[in-house]
Protein backbone atom coordinates (compact mmCIF):
# COMPACT_ATOMS: atom_id res chain seq x y z
CA UNK A 1 0.00 0.00 0.00
CA UNK A 2 1.34 3.36 -0.94
CA UNK A 3 1.53 6.09 1.62
CA UNK A 4 -0.47 9.05 0.35
CA UNK A 5 1.98 11.37 2.08
CA UNK A 6 4.60 10.34 -0.49
CA UNK A 7 2.56 11.92 -3.23
CA UNK A 8 3.19 15.49 -4.01
CA UNK A 9 -0.33 16.90 -3.88
CA UNK A 10 -0.69 20.60 -3.87
CA UNK A 11 -3.82 22.61 -3.61
CA UNK A 12 -4.43 25.67 -5.68
CA UNK A 13 -3.55 28.45 -3.29
CA UNK A 14 -6.02 31.00 -4.63
CA UNK A 15 -8.88 28.62 -4.04
CA UNK A 16 -7.83 27.90 -0.46
CA UNK A 17 -7.37 31.56 0.31
CA UNK A 18 -10.83 32.33 -1.07
CA UNK A 19 -12.36 29.59 1.08
CA UNK A 20 -10.50 30.78 4.18
CA UNK A 21 -11.83 34.30 3.75
CA UNK A 22 -15.32 33.55 2.51
CA UNK A 23 -16.46 30.71 4.79
CA UNK A 24 -16.06 32.59 8.10
CA UNK A 25 -17.52 35.67 6.41
CA UNK A 26 -20.61 33.74 5.29
CA UNK A 27 -21.08 32.35 8.78
CA UNK A 28 -20.65 35.79 10.24
CA UNK A 29 -23.31 37.13 7.87
CA UNK A 30 -25.59 34.23 8.71
CA UNK A 31 -25.19 35.02 12.39
CA UNK A 32 -23.86 31.60 13.33
CA UNK A 33 -20.61 30.75 15.07
CA UNK A 34 -18.17 29.02 12.74
CA UNK A 35 -16.25 25.98 13.83
CA UNK A 36 -12.62 26.77 13.26
CA UNK A 37 -12.01 23.70 11.21
CA UNK A 38 -8.86 24.98 9.56
CA UNK A 39 -7.00 25.55 12.78
CA UNK A 40 -8.45 22.62 14.66
CA UNK A 41 -9.02 24.38 17.96
CA UNK A 42 -11.65 23.01 20.35
CA UNK A 43 -14.96 24.80 19.97
CA UNK A 44 -17.98 24.78 22.25
CA UNK A 45 -21.22 23.28 20.97
CA UNK A 46 -24.55 22.96 22.74
CA UNK A 47 -26.18 19.58 22.96
CA UNK A 48 -29.94 18.99 22.75
CA UNK A 49 -29.96 18.95 26.55
CA UNK A 50 -28.65 22.49 26.50
CA UNK A 51 -25.19 21.65 27.82
CA UNK A 52 -22.12 23.06 26.19
CA UNK A 53 -19.52 20.50 25.28
CA UNK A 54 -15.97 21.16 24.20
CA UNK A 55 -15.00 19.57 20.91
CA UNK A 56 -11.55 18.07 20.70
CA UNK A 57 -10.74 17.56 17.08
CA UNK A 58 -8.47 14.57 17.61
CA UNK A 59 -9.05 13.18 14.12
CA UNK A 60 -8.24 16.31 12.23
CA UNK A 61 -4.73 15.48 11.26
CA UNK A 62 -5.70 12.10 9.88
CA UNK A 63 -8.73 13.51 8.08
CA UNK A 64 -6.58 16.25 6.62
CA UNK A 65 -4.89 13.66 4.42
CA UNK A 66 -8.21 13.11 2.65
CA UNK A 67 -9.41 16.68 2.88
CA UNK A 68 -6.28 17.99 1.20
CA UNK A 69 -8.04 17.00 -1.99
CA UNK A 70 -11.66 16.50 -0.94
CA UNK A 71 -12.07 19.96 0.56
CA UNK A 72 -11.16 21.62 -2.71
CA UNK A 73 -12.55 22.03 -6.16
CA UNK A 74 -9.25 21.46 -7.91
CA UNK A 75 -6.48 18.96 -7.28
CA UNK A 76 -2.94 19.07 -8.60
CA UNK A 77 -1.32 15.67 -8.63
CA UNK A 78 2.15 14.67 -9.68
CA UNK A 79 2.66 10.90 -10.04
CA UNK A 80 5.74 9.38 -8.49
CA UNK A 81 8.78 9.60 -10.76
CA UNK A 82 7.20 12.23 -12.97
CA UNK A 83 7.72 15.97 -13.25
CA UNK A 84 4.40 16.48 -15.02
CA UNK A 85 1.66 17.66 -12.65
CA UNK A 86 -1.92 16.84 -13.48
CA UNK A 87 -4.60 19.35 -12.59
CA UNK A 88 -8.17 18.24 -12.52
CA UNK A 89 -11.51 19.22 -11.07
CA UNK A 90 -12.83 17.37 -8.07
CA UNK A 91 -16.22 15.75 -8.74
CA UNK A 92 -18.64 18.04 -6.91
CA UNK A 93 -20.32 15.26 -4.88
CA UNK A 94 -16.91 14.33 -3.49
CA UNK A 95 -16.08 17.79 -2.19
CA UNK A 96 -16.46 18.12 1.57
CA UNK A 97 -17.22 21.44 3.21
CA UNK A 98 -14.99 21.03 6.22
CA UNK A 99 -16.68 23.81 8.15
CA UNK A 100 -20.05 22.11 7.81
CA UNK A 101 -18.58 18.69 8.46
CA UNK A 102 -16.92 19.70 11.73
CA UNK A 103 -20.13 21.47 12.79
CA UNK A 104 -22.23 18.38 12.09
CA UNK A 105 -23.32 15.70 14.54
CA UNK A 106 -20.78 13.28 13.12
CA UNK A 107 -17.89 15.72 13.48
CA UNK A 108 -15.79 13.35 15.55
CA UNK A 109 -15.52 10.64 12.91
CA UNK A 110 -12.47 9.80 10.93
CA UNK A 111 -13.14 9.51 7.21
CA UNK A 112 -12.13 5.86 7.34
CA UNK A 113 -14.56 5.11 10.16
CA UNK A 114 -17.26 5.02 7.50
CA UNK A 115 -15.24 4.72 4.30
CA UNK A 116 -12.96 1.86 3.40
CA UNK A 117 -9.37 2.15 4.60
CA UNK A 118 -8.43 1.29 1.02
CA UNK A 119 -9.13 4.95 0.30
CA UNK A 120 -5.80 5.68 1.96
CA UNK A 121 -4.28 4.54 -1.31
CA UNK A 122 -4.11 7.05 -4.11
CA UNK A 123 -5.16 6.91 -6.92
CA UNK A 124 -8.19 5.20 -5.36
CA UNK A 125 -9.28 1.81 -6.64
CA UNK A 126 -12.26 2.06 -9.01
CA UNK A 127 -14.15 -0.69 -7.18
CA UNK A 128 -14.34 1.46 -4.04
CA UNK A 129 -17.14 3.42 -5.72
CA UNK A 130 -19.40 0.49 -4.90
CA UNK A 131 -18.55 0.24 -1.20
CA UNK A 132 -21.45 -0.38 1.18
CA UNK A 133 -22.69 2.81 2.81
CA UNK A 134 -23.75 2.24 6.41
CA UNK A 135 -27.23 3.49 7.31
CA UNK A 136 -28.40 5.00 10.61
CA UNK A 137 -29.38 1.63 12.09
CA UNK A 138 -25.97 0.12 11.35
CA UNK A 139 -24.52 2.33 14.06
CA UNK A 140 -27.51 3.47 16.12
CA UNK A 141 -29.73 0.39 16.05
CA UNK A 142 -30.53 -1.19 19.44
CA UNK A 143 -28.33 1.33 21.16
CA UNK A 144 -29.78 2.48 24.53
CA UNK A 145 -27.75 5.67 24.31
CA UNK A 146 -29.75 6.71 21.26
CA UNK A 147 -33.07 5.20 22.33
CA UNK A 148 -34.75 8.60 22.59
CA UNK A 149 -34.23 9.16 18.86
CA UNK A 150 -36.20 5.98 18.05
CA UNK A 151 -34.07 4.96 15.07
CA UNK A 152 -35.87 1.62 14.79
CA UNK A 153 -39.23 3.39 14.60
CA UNK A 154 -37.84 5.77 12.00
CA UNK A 155 -36.75 2.80 9.90
CA UNK A 156 -40.18 1.19 10.35
CA UNK A 157 -41.95 4.37 9.30
CA UNK A 158 -39.62 4.86 6.35
CA UNK A 159 -40.31 1.30 5.20
CA UNK A 160 -44.03 2.09 5.30
CA UNK A 161 -43.51 5.28 3.28
CA UNK A 162 -44.04 5.87 -0.42
CA UNK A 163 -40.31 6.45 -0.81
CA UNK A 164 -39.63 2.87 0.23
CA UNK A 165 -42.52 1.22 -1.58
CA UNK A 166 -41.52 2.84 -4.86
CA UNK A 167 -37.79 3.41 -4.63
CA UNK A 168 -36.36 1.15 -1.94
CA UNK A 169 -33.23 0.53 -4.01
CA UNK A 170 -32.62 4.14 -4.82
CA UNK A 171 -33.40 5.87 -1.53
CA UNK A 172 -31.63 5.39 1.78
CA UNK A 173 -31.20 7.48 4.95
CA UNK A 174 -28.45 9.42 3.21
CA UNK A 175 -30.66 10.39 0.29
CA UNK A 176 -32.34 12.89 2.58
CA UNK A 177 -29.86 13.33 5.40
CA UNK A 178 -26.44 14.35 4.17
CA UNK A 179 -24.01 11.93 5.73
CA UNK A 180 -21.28 14.52 6.14
CA UNK A 181 -23.31 17.49 7.32
CA UNK A 182 -26.20 15.90 9.23
CA UNK A 183 -27.04 18.11 12.17
CA UNK A 184 -29.80 17.80 14.71
CA UNK A 185 -32.58 20.12 13.62
CA UNK A 186 -36.05 19.81 15.16
CA UNK A 187 -34.56 19.31 18.63
CA UNK A 188 -32.30 22.33 18.38
CA UNK A 189 -33.83 24.64 20.94
CA UNK A 190 -31.45 27.49 20.08
CA UNK A 191 -32.65 27.62 16.51
CA UNK A 192 -35.37 29.88 15.15
CA UNK A 193 -38.23 27.68 13.98
CA UNK A 194 -38.02 29.29 10.53
CA UNK A 195 -34.51 27.84 10.22
CA UNK A 196 -35.83 24.42 11.24
CA UNK A 197 -38.50 24.69 8.54
CA UNK A 198 -36.07 25.89 5.87
CA UNK A 199 -33.59 23.10 6.73
CA UNK A 200 -36.28 20.45 6.59
CA UNK A 201 -37.88 21.66 3.37
CA UNK A 202 -34.47 21.90 1.70
CA UNK A 203 -34.21 18.12 2.21
CA UNK A 204 -37.40 17.49 0.22
CA UNK A 205 -36.63 20.11 -2.38
CA UNK A 206 -33.20 18.55 -2.87
CA UNK A 207 -35.04 16.09 -5.13
CA UNK A 208 -38.49 17.55 -5.65
CA UNK A 209 -37.18 20.87 -6.92
CA UNK A 210 -34.05 19.46 -8.51
CA UNK A 211 -34.68 17.92 -11.90
CA UNK A 212 -31.43 15.94 -12.01
CA UNK A 213 -31.80 14.37 -8.58
CA UNK A 214 -35.51 13.63 -9.03
CA UNK A 215 -35.21 12.12 -12.47
CA UNK A 216 -32.19 10.04 -11.48
CA UNK A 217 -34.35 8.24 -8.90
CA UNK A 218 -37.85 8.39 -10.36
CA UNK A 219 -36.96 8.11 -14.05
CA UNK A 220 -39.81 10.45 -14.95
CA UNK A 221 -40.24 14.17 -15.36
CA UNK A 222 -40.08 16.19 -12.18
CA UNK A 223 -43.37 18.00 -11.56
CA UNK A 224 -42.94 21.64 -10.57
CA UNK A 225 -43.88 21.99 -6.88
CA UNK A 226 -45.20 25.52 -7.31
CA UNK A 227 -47.59 24.26 -10.01
CA UNK A 228 -48.73 21.19 -8.07
CA UNK A 229 -49.39 23.46 -5.06
CA UNK A 230 -51.17 26.15 -7.03
CA UNK A 231 -54.38 25.46 -5.08
CA UNK A 232 -52.68 26.48 -1.83
CA UNK A 233 -53.47 30.09 -0.88
CA UNK A 234 -50.48 32.25 0.09
CA UNK A 235 -48.26 29.53 -1.29
CA UNK A 236 -44.93 31.27 -0.61
CA UNK A 237 -45.95 31.96 2.96
CA UNK A 238 -47.00 28.39 3.56
CA UNK A 239 -43.71 27.11 2.15
CA UNK A 240 -41.85 29.41 4.52
CA UNK A 241 -43.97 28.70 7.58
CA UNK A 242 -44.53 24.95 7.53
CA UNK A 243 -42.57 21.90 6.51
CA UNK A 244 -43.54 19.72 3.54
CA UNK A 245 -44.02 16.79 5.95
CA UNK A 246 -46.80 18.64 7.80
CA UNK A 247 -49.16 17.65 4.97
CA UNK A 248 -47.23 14.86 3.27
CA UNK A 249 -46.36 12.61 6.23
CA UNK A 250 -48.42 10.66 8.69
CA UNK A 251 -48.11 11.99 12.23
CA UNK A 252 -46.50 9.56 14.61
CA UNK A 253 -46.81 9.96 18.36
CA UNK A 254 -43.44 8.37 19.10
CA UNK A 255 -41.39 10.26 16.57
CA UNK A 256 -40.55 13.92 16.74
CA UNK A 257 -40.21 14.08 12.96
CA UNK A 258 -42.61 11.97 10.92
CA UNK A 259 -40.89 9.68 8.41
CA UNK A 260 -43.86 7.95 6.81
CA UNK A 261 -44.20 9.98 3.65
CA UNK A 262 -47.61 9.37 2.11
CA UNK A 263 -48.59 9.06 -1.55
CA UNK A 264 -49.59 12.46 -2.87
CA UNK A 265 -53.28 11.46 -3.00
CA UNK A 266 -53.25 11.12 0.79
CA UNK A 267 -51.68 14.51 1.49
CA UNK A 268 -53.61 16.90 3.71
CA UNK A 269 -55.65 19.38 1.69
CA UNK A 270 -58.23 20.52 4.23
CA UNK A 271 -57.30 23.90 5.69
CA UNK A 272 -58.87 23.14 9.08
CA UNK A 273 -56.47 20.26 9.65
CA UNK A 274 -54.02 23.01 10.61
CA UNK A 275 -56.26 26.06 10.93
CA UNK A 276 -58.26 24.98 13.95
CA UNK A 277 -57.86 24.67 17.69
CA UNK A 278 -57.06 21.03 17.10
CA UNK A 279 -54.29 21.89 14.64
CA UNK A 280 -52.20 18.95 13.51
CA UNK A 281 -49.18 21.26 13.72
CA UNK A 282 -49.31 20.83 17.48
CA UNK A 283 -48.50 17.17 16.94
CA UNK A 284 -45.90 17.86 14.30
CA UNK A 285 -44.09 21.16 13.76
CA UNK A 286 -44.70 22.54 17.26
CA UNK A 287 -44.52 19.21 19.04
CA UNK A 288 -41.08 19.80 20.46
CA UNK A 289 -41.92 23.32 21.63
CA UNK A 290 -45.09 22.06 23.24
CA UNK A 291 -43.15 19.30 24.99
CA UNK A 292 -40.70 21.92 26.15
CA UNK A 293 -43.56 23.99 27.52
CA UNK A 294 -42.64 27.36 26.06
CA UNK A 295 -44.41 30.18 27.86
CA UNK A 296 -46.41 31.35 24.85
CA UNK A 297 -47.56 27.83 24.16
CA UNK A 298 -49.04 27.61 27.65
CA UNK A 299 -51.33 30.36 26.54
CA UNK A 300 -52.20 28.15 23.58
CA UNK A 301 -50.32 30.44 21.26
CA UNK A 302 -47.84 28.80 18.94
CA UNK A 303 -44.47 30.50 18.90
CA UNK A 304 -44.57 33.60 16.78
CA UNK A 305 -46.61 32.02 14.03
CA UNK A 306 -49.76 33.71 12.83
CA UNK A 307 -51.97 30.73 12.25
CA UNK A 308 -55.53 31.91 11.85
CA UNK A 309 -58.02 29.60 13.53
CA UNK A 310 -55.43 27.83 15.60
CA UNK A 311 -53.77 30.45 17.72
CA UNK A 312 -56.03 31.36 20.57
CA UNK A 313 -54.63 33.53 23.26
CA UNK A 314 -56.71 32.87 26.34
CA UNK A 315 -56.18 36.50 27.35
CA UNK A 316 -57.46 37.87 24.04
CA UNK A 317 -60.33 35.40 24.08
CA UNK A 318 -61.34 36.26 27.63
CA UNK A 319 -61.16 39.98 26.89
CA UNK A 320 -63.23 39.52 23.71
CA UNK A 321 -65.87 37.48 25.53
CA UNK A 322 -66.11 39.98 28.38
CA UNK A 323 -66.48 42.92 25.96
CA UNK A 324 -69.18 41.27 23.86
CA UNK A 325 -71.04 39.91 26.89
CA UNK A 326 -70.94 43.30 28.62
CA UNK A 327 -72.29 44.95 25.47
CA UNK A 328 -75.12 42.46 25.04
CA UNK A 329 -76.06 42.57 28.74
CA UNK A 330 -75.89 46.38 28.71
CA UNK A 331 -78.21 46.54 25.69
CA UNK A 332 -80.64 44.00 27.16
CA UNK A 333 -80.67 45.82 30.51
CA UNK A 334 -81.24 49.21 28.91
CA UNK A 335 -83.92 47.83 26.62
CA UNK A 336 -85.74 46.17 29.51
CA UNK A 337 -85.70 49.42 31.48
CA UNK A 338 -87.03 51.31 28.45
CA UNK A 339 -89.91 48.87 28.12
CA UNK A 340 -90.72 49.02 31.83
CA UNK A 341 -90.48 52.81 32.12
CA UNK A 342 -92.29 53.43 28.80
CA UNK A 343 -95.43 51.94 30.28
CA UNK A 344 -95.11 54.15 33.33
CA UNK A 345 -94.29 57.37 31.46
CA UNK A 346 -96.98 56.87 28.79
CA UNK A 347 -99.68 59.45 29.26
Amino acid at each position, binding site marked *: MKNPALFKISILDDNLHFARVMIPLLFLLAGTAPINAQEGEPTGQRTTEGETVEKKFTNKEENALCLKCHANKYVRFTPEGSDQPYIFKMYSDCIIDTTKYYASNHWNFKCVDCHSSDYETYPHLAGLRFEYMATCLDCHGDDPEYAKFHFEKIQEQYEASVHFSKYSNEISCWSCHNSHYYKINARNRDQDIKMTIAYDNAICLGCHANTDNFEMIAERLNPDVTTTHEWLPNQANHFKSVRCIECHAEINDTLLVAHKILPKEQAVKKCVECHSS*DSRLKASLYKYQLEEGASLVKDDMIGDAVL*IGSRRSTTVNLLSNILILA*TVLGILGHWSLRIITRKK*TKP
Partner: protein
Amino acid sequence: MSHNLYLYPKFIRLWHFINAVMFLLLIVTGLSMQYTAPDSPLIRFDIAVKLHDIGGITVSINYLLFLMGNMVTDNGKYYRIQAKGFTTELKGQFRYYIWGIFKGEAPPYPISKDRKFNPLQKLSYVLVMYMGMPVIILTGLALFFPQVFDLLGLGSLIVADVIHVLMGIVLTMFMLIHLYFSTFGRTMFSNFKSIISGWHESSQAPG
Protein backbone atom coordinates in the same frame (compact mmCIF):
# COMPACT_ATOMS: atom_id res chain seq x y z
CA MET B 1 -96.62 65.38 15.45
CA SER B 2 -93.86 64.04 13.25
CA HIS B 3 -91.57 65.91 10.87
CA ASN B 4 -89.78 64.42 7.92
CA LEU B 5 -86.26 65.47 7.02
CA TYR B 6 -84.40 64.28 3.93
CA LEU B 7 -81.13 63.47 5.69
CA TYR B 8 -79.64 60.59 3.75
CA PRO B 9 -79.07 61.15 0.03
CA LYS B 10 -78.75 58.16 -2.28
CA PHE B 11 -74.95 57.94 -2.29
CA ILE B 12 -74.85 57.95 1.54
CA ARG B 13 -77.51 55.26 1.70
CA LEU B 14 -75.65 53.16 -0.84
CA TRP B 15 -72.36 53.67 1.03
CA HIS B 16 -74.06 52.78 4.33
CA PHE B 17 -75.73 49.71 2.82
CA ILE B 18 -72.42 48.38 1.46
CA ASN B 19 -70.73 49.05 4.79
CA ALA B 20 -73.50 47.36 6.76
CA VAL B 21 -73.58 44.21 4.63
CA MET B 22 -69.80 43.93 4.49
CA PHE B 23 -69.48 44.55 8.24
CA LEU B 24 -71.88 41.71 8.93
CA LEU B 25 -70.02 39.49 6.48
CA LEU B 26 -66.69 40.36 8.11
CA ILE B 27 -68.00 39.69 11.62
CA VAL B 28 -69.50 36.32 10.71
CA THR B 29 -66.52 35.15 8.65
CA GLY B 30 -64.05 36.59 11.18
CA LEU B 31 -65.67 34.68 14.03
CA SER B 32 -65.87 31.57 11.89
CA MET B 33 -62.14 31.73 11.16
CA GLN B 34 -61.14 32.58 14.72
CA TYR B 35 -63.17 29.74 16.23
CA THR B 36 -62.98 27.30 13.36
CA ALA B 37 -63.47 23.64 14.23
CA PRO B 38 -62.83 20.75 11.85
CA ASP B 39 -66.15 19.00 12.52
CA SER B 40 -68.50 21.94 12.94
CA PRO B 41 -67.34 24.92 10.92
CA LEU B 42 -69.72 27.86 10.86
CA ILE B 43 -68.44 28.53 7.36
CA ARG B 44 -65.86 26.26 5.67
CA PHE B 45 -62.44 27.77 6.41
CA ASP B 46 -61.29 28.43 2.84
CA ILE B 47 -64.66 29.96 1.95
CA ALA B 48 -64.59 32.09 5.13
CA VAL B 49 -61.10 33.34 4.20
CA LYS B 50 -62.17 34.29 0.67
CA LEU B 51 -65.35 36.03 1.87
CA HIS B 52 -63.40 37.85 4.58
CA ASP B 53 -60.89 39.01 1.95
CA ILE B 54 -63.69 40.25 -0.30
CA GLY B 55 -65.41 41.99 2.64
CA GLY B 56 -62.16 43.57 3.81
CA ILE B 57 -61.23 44.91 0.38
CA THR B 58 -64.75 46.27 -0.19
CA VAL B 59 -64.87 47.99 3.22
CA SER B 60 -61.40 49.46 2.61
CA ILE B 61 -62.46 50.93 -0.74
CA ASN B 62 -65.65 52.18 0.87
CA TYR B 63 -63.57 53.79 3.59
CA LEU B 64 -61.44 55.59 1.01
CA LEU B 65 -64.66 56.86 -0.60
CA PHE B 66 -65.74 58.10 2.84
CA LEU B 67 -62.46 59.99 3.31
CA MET B 68 -62.61 61.50 -0.19
CA GLY B 69 -66.34 62.25 0.13
CA ASN B 70 -65.74 64.11 3.36
CA MET B 71 -63.06 66.16 1.64
CA VAL B 72 -65.04 67.15 -1.44
CA THR B 73 -68.54 67.45 0.04
CA ASP B 74 -69.84 69.08 3.20
CA ASN B 75 -70.56 65.67 4.77
CA GLY B 76 -67.32 66.06 6.76
CA LYS B 77 -68.88 68.79 8.90
CA TYR B 78 -70.93 66.18 10.77
CA TYR B 79 -67.68 64.60 11.95
CA ARG B 80 -66.04 67.81 13.15
CA ILE B 81 -66.05 68.23 16.90
CA GLN B 82 -66.07 71.74 18.35
CA ALA B 83 -64.07 71.43 21.54
CA LYS B 84 -65.92 74.30 23.22
CA GLY B 85 -68.88 72.97 25.14
CA PHE B 86 -68.55 69.47 23.75
CA THR B 87 -67.97 67.90 27.19
CA THR B 88 -71.16 69.50 28.48
CA GLU B 89 -73.06 68.26 25.43
CA LEU B 90 -71.67 64.76 25.98
CA LYS B 91 -72.71 64.82 29.62
CA GLY B 92 -76.18 65.98 28.61
CA GLN B 93 -76.59 63.20 26.04
CA PHE B 94 -75.17 60.60 28.44
CA ARG B 95 -77.51 61.74 31.18
CA TYR B 96 -80.41 61.41 28.74
CA TYR B 97 -79.47 57.80 27.90
CA ILE B 98 -79.05 56.67 31.50
CA TRP B 99 -81.83 58.74 33.06
CA GLY B 100 -83.91 61.06 30.91
CA ILE B 101 -85.05 58.44 28.43
CA PHE B 102 -86.61 56.43 31.25
CA LYS B 103 -88.44 59.51 32.51
CA GLY B 104 -89.93 60.20 29.12
CA GLU B 105 -87.80 63.33 28.54
CA ALA B 106 -87.20 64.67 25.05
CA PRO B 107 -83.72 64.10 23.54
CA PRO B 108 -81.44 67.06 24.44
CA TYR B 109 -79.89 67.27 20.96
CA PRO B 110 -82.54 66.28 18.41
CA ILE B 111 -81.56 65.53 14.85
CA SER B 112 -81.70 68.35 12.35
CA LYS B 113 -80.25 69.26 8.96
CA ASP B 114 -77.26 70.81 10.72
CA ARG B 115 -76.93 68.23 13.46
CA LYS B 116 -77.26 64.77 12.02
CA PHE B 117 -75.57 63.12 14.99
CA ASN B 118 -76.07 63.71 18.69
CA PRO B 119 -72.83 64.40 20.66
CA LEU B 120 -72.32 60.79 21.75
CA GLN B 121 -73.06 59.54 18.24
CA LYS B 122 -70.60 62.07 16.83
CA LEU B 123 -67.83 61.01 19.25
CA SER B 124 -68.37 57.30 18.61
CA TYR B 125 -68.49 57.80 14.81
CA VAL B 126 -65.33 59.91 14.87
CA LEU B 127 -63.53 57.30 16.97
CA VAL B 128 -64.73 54.45 14.76
CA MET B 129 -64.15 56.16 11.43
CA TYR B 130 -60.89 57.99 12.16
CA MET B 131 -59.25 55.56 14.60
CA GLY B 132 -60.91 52.15 14.53
CA MET B 133 -61.23 51.83 10.76
CA PRO B 134 -57.63 52.85 9.89
CA VAL B 135 -56.31 50.43 12.54
CA ILE B 136 -58.39 47.47 11.37
CA ILE B 137 -57.72 48.20 7.69
CA LEU B 138 -53.97 48.57 8.16
CA THR B 139 -53.65 45.44 10.33
CA GLY B 140 -55.89 43.63 7.85
CA LEU B 141 -53.59 44.68 5.01
CA ALA B 142 -50.62 43.40 7.01
CA LEU B 143 -52.32 40.01 7.32
CA PHE B 144 -53.36 40.09 3.67
CA PHE B 145 -49.84 40.94 2.45
CA PRO B 146 -47.58 39.33 5.08
CA GLN B 147 -44.58 39.37 2.75
CA VAL B 148 -44.83 43.14 2.31
CA PHE B 149 -45.24 43.49 6.09
CA ASP B 150 -42.05 41.46 6.58
CA LEU B 151 -40.17 43.49 3.99
CA LEU B 152 -41.12 46.76 5.63
CA GLY B 153 -39.68 45.44 8.89
CA LEU B 154 -42.71 46.48 10.88
CA GLY B 155 -42.11 43.91 13.60
CA SER B 156 -43.98 40.78 14.41
CA LEU B 157 -47.16 39.96 12.57
CA ILE B 158 -48.64 38.58 15.80
CA VAL B 159 -49.03 42.12 17.10
CA ALA B 160 -50.95 43.06 13.95
CA ASP B 161 -52.98 39.86 14.29
CA VAL B 162 -53.96 40.46 17.92
CA ILE B 163 -54.77 44.14 17.28
CA HIS B 164 -56.88 43.13 14.25
CA VAL B 165 -58.86 40.60 16.31
CA LEU B 166 -59.37 42.99 19.22
CA MET B 167 -60.37 45.87 16.94
CA GLY B 168 -62.77 43.47 15.23
CA ILE B 169 -64.36 42.83 18.63
CA VAL B 170 -64.53 46.57 19.40
CA LEU B 171 -66.17 47.27 16.04
CA THR B 172 -68.59 44.39 16.62
CA MET B 173 -69.52 46.06 19.91
CA PHE B 174 -70.02 49.29 17.99
CA MET B 175 -72.22 47.46 15.49
CA LEU B 176 -74.41 46.00 18.27
CA ILE B 177 -74.75 49.35 20.04
CA HIS B 178 -75.35 51.12 16.71
CA LEU B 179 -78.16 48.69 15.90
CA TYR B 180 -79.66 49.10 19.36
CA PHE B 181 -79.53 52.90 19.26
CA SER B 182 -81.24 52.76 15.89
CA THR B 183 -84.35 51.61 17.76
CA PHE B 184 -84.46 55.02 19.50
CA GLY B 185 -86.45 56.61 16.69
CA ARG B 186 -90.04 57.73 16.73
CA THR B 187 -90.95 54.07 16.57
CA MET B 188 -88.65 51.11 17.00
CA PHE B 189 -88.16 50.69 13.24
CA SER B 190 -88.46 54.28 11.98
CA ASN B 191 -84.68 54.83 11.89
CA PHE B 192 -84.21 51.61 9.94
CA LYS B 193 -86.80 52.87 7.45
CA SER B 194 -84.99 56.23 7.28
CA ILE B 195 -81.70 54.75 6.16
CA ILE B 196 -83.57 52.94 3.39
CA SER B 197 -85.83 55.79 2.26
CA GLY B 198 -83.53 58.69 3.12
CA TRP B 199 -86.28 60.48 5.07
CA HIS B 200 -85.76 60.89 8.79
CA GLU B 201 -88.91 60.74 10.79
CA SER B 202 -88.81 62.72 14.02
CA SER B 203 -91.35 63.32 16.76
CA GLN B 204 -89.44 66.51 17.58
CA ALA B 205 -89.77 69.82 15.80
CA PRO B 206 -86.68 70.49 13.65
CA GLY B 207 -84.08 72.19 15.82
